[in-house]
């Protein structure tokens, strides 16, 4: 068809009108799509804002803790009447008596009143005895001296001071007028103050909310993640490299690929069951250990890492491979020298997604016993421990009002943990990123 014939068949003006009409529809569709996008972003940001305000609103107060100033005389006749200074004696001494003496001395009217004394004692946490015990064991020369120290108040007092609990008995308050009077008196004298909550950051779990800390869970999570990273990164990357660069395409590799893709979608509790059966029952590894937790989380994160690494390797342009092979590089040299460095940013992104999934995972850890109530901070990955998500689960299930704010605080810590990991990953990715 020549140009003149074409012009006769379809008049130009008609085309312009058609295109114009169509253009309007196209613009409208584009505007609509933009609006959908903006709406969904607004929705997402709103949800995020609600989530963050509710968590921070609830949890922020857990980072401070009311403490009471006591002047304690380390009375040798109470602690160690025989003066032996042996550890067993120091450990078993009646430190509660010292606390009692100290606190009743502030309010002389309670000295001869057992009921009042008991009420007064209920204001101070049992952690006070722990504080004194530790001091004495660390330094027995304190016996016979007098020291001023800050000890935590009971959780209910703390909650009332923070305003989470009502003062008056009609509204569910737990304190008698007498107790309220003491609290007010001590606050007025500056003997009760809120300080940064060091217990939360240094202690393991406790039945007493005011003594409960996250450190055990943080260390447990850290150990688990180190194990997970050490195992799943090299294993995942090596698997991806083999499947992508070395294995030919045949029925076996297809089967493996399908299985790996399916594994990524398997509920994590299934991996927990596998870990329970394999690592605990068959291999006889210890229960509740972060090491085993790390193994279980490796199972969870491996498929993600393998899939992401394969995608990253696939994305390396083929001419890089050709250039290397054309120079006489072996396949391994091609991969190690050229393909892997270029794929590294993508691999790291995949790894961090896998690790982020692992750090938030609680189900597999429940199966291998990391849900146990553990007070001690684990010193090695083989010591019993919990992990952050499991600790959140445990605290959320605790009835005390003080655990509500601590649950939110633990969530904040977990989110911080994740943020730090992601920041590290972004830094590494930027560092490895190369243009070509």
């Amino acid at each position, binding site marked *: 068809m020549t140009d003149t014939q074409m012009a006769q068949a379809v008049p130009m003006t008609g085309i312009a009108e058609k295109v114009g009409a169509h253009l309007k529809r196209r613009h409208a569709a584009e505007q609509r799509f933009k609006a959908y996008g903006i709406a969904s972003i607004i929705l997402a940001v709103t949800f995020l804002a609600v989530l963050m305000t509710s968590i921070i609103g609830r949890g922020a107060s857990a980072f401070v803790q009311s403490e009471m100033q006591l002047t304690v005389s380390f009375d040798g006749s109470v602690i160690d009447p025989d003066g032996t200074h042996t550890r067993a004696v120091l450990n078993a001494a009646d430190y509660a008596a010292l606390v009692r003496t100290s606190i009743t001395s502030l309010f002389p009217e309670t000295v001869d009143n057992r009921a009042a004394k008991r009420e007064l004692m209920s204001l101070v946490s049992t952690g006070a005895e722990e504080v004194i015990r530790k001091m004495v064991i660390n330094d027995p020369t304190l016996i016979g001296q007098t020291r001023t120290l800050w000890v935590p108040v009971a959780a209910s007092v703390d909650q009332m001071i923070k305003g989470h609990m009502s003062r008056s008995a009609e509204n569910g308050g737990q304190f008698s007028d007498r107790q309220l009077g003491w609290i007010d008196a001590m606050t007025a004298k500056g003997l009760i103050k809120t300080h940064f909550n060091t217990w939360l950051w240094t202690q393991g779990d406790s039945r007493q909310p005011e003594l409960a800390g996250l450190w055990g869970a943080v260390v447990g999570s850290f150990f688990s993640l180190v194990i997970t990273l050490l195992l799943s990164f090299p294993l995942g990357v090596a698997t991806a490299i083999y499947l992508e660069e070395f294995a030919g395409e045949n029925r076996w590799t297809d089967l493996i690929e399908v299985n790996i893709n399916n594994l990524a979608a398997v509920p994590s509790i299934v991996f927990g069951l596998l870990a329970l059966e394999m690592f605990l029952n068959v291999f006889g590894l210890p229960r509740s250990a972060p090491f085993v937790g790390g193994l279980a989380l490796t199972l969870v994160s491996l498929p993600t890492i393998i899939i992401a690494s394969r995608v990253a390797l696939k994305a390396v342009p083929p001419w890089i491979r050709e250039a290397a*092979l054309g*120079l*006489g*590089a072996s396949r391994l040299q091609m991969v190690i*020298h050229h393909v892997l460095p270029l794929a590294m940013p993508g691999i790291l992104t995949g790894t961090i997604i896998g690790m982020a999934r692992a750090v938030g995972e609680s189900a597999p850890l429940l199966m291998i016993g990391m849900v146990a109530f553990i007070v001690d901070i684990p010193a090695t990955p083989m010591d019993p421990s919990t992990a952050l998500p499991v600790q959140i689960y445990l605290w959320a299930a605790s009835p005390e009002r003080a655990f509500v704010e601590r649950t939110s605080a633990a969530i904040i810590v977990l989110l911080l943990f994740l943020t730090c990991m992601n920041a590290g990953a972004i830094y590494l990715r930027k560092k490895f990123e*190369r243009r070509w």
Partner: protein
Amino acid sequence: MTTVASESYFQQNARQIQGGIKVSSEDVNVYYSEKHALKHVNLGINANEVTALIGPSGCGKSTYLRCLNRMNDLIEGARVTGKILLDGQDIYDRELDVVQLRARVGMVFQKPNPFPKSIFDNVAYGPRIHGLASTQSELEEIVLTSLEKAGLYNEVKDRMTEPGTGLSGGQQQRLCIARAIAVSPEVILMDEPCSALDPIATAKVEELIDELRENYTIVIVTHSMQQAARVSQRTAFFHLGDLIEYGDTEQIFTNPQHKLTQGYITGRFG
């Protein structure tokens, strides 16, 4: 860094086999799965000459080129039959290590493909993996000599540590040529090396090809008939997987024996 003091490395390694046949193919067939891409090709490539492979797209010229250093091995489902002899040795022999072959038969690709590394590292990569230099100064000498031979040294001497990918297209392609000759190959395969370059860069590369002929055997695939006429001594014309005609470039372009060749070089198809 030392300046280029001597050519000894290249003099030692230059294999001057004047006039002889460097690469010969006997009944070479290539199949991509079911497709018969190259059919019964018999071709002898002379040493220290530039042999141009021309023909319309899909005629098998690149396929043939990639047989010569076994790059077709990388393609899933590709199968090569027949014999290709490099200095009389079958390169498809099971005993032969393909890594060693590719050190003897270098390749320059259509799209300039420097590694995302420094200019120095780009050229040094081949000598490094083949262990051609035992000391850093030896390596530097190889790199500088190669860059000089590729006509790039003066342009990049002050920026050896800058990324090779930051050069212009023509410079990148000459960097790739320098990278290929740093391994001191006997044969250099070029797969449309100028198709991504502007005319000035093309002229430089063509000039370079002509100079390199002195020390290397060069096989070049090109879509530009003028280029084939300018740089090559011998030309092979492929069509639909068949080698239609092969002879002196002058003869092919002035007096083609075959109807198809005539049609192609006069621009009636292709």
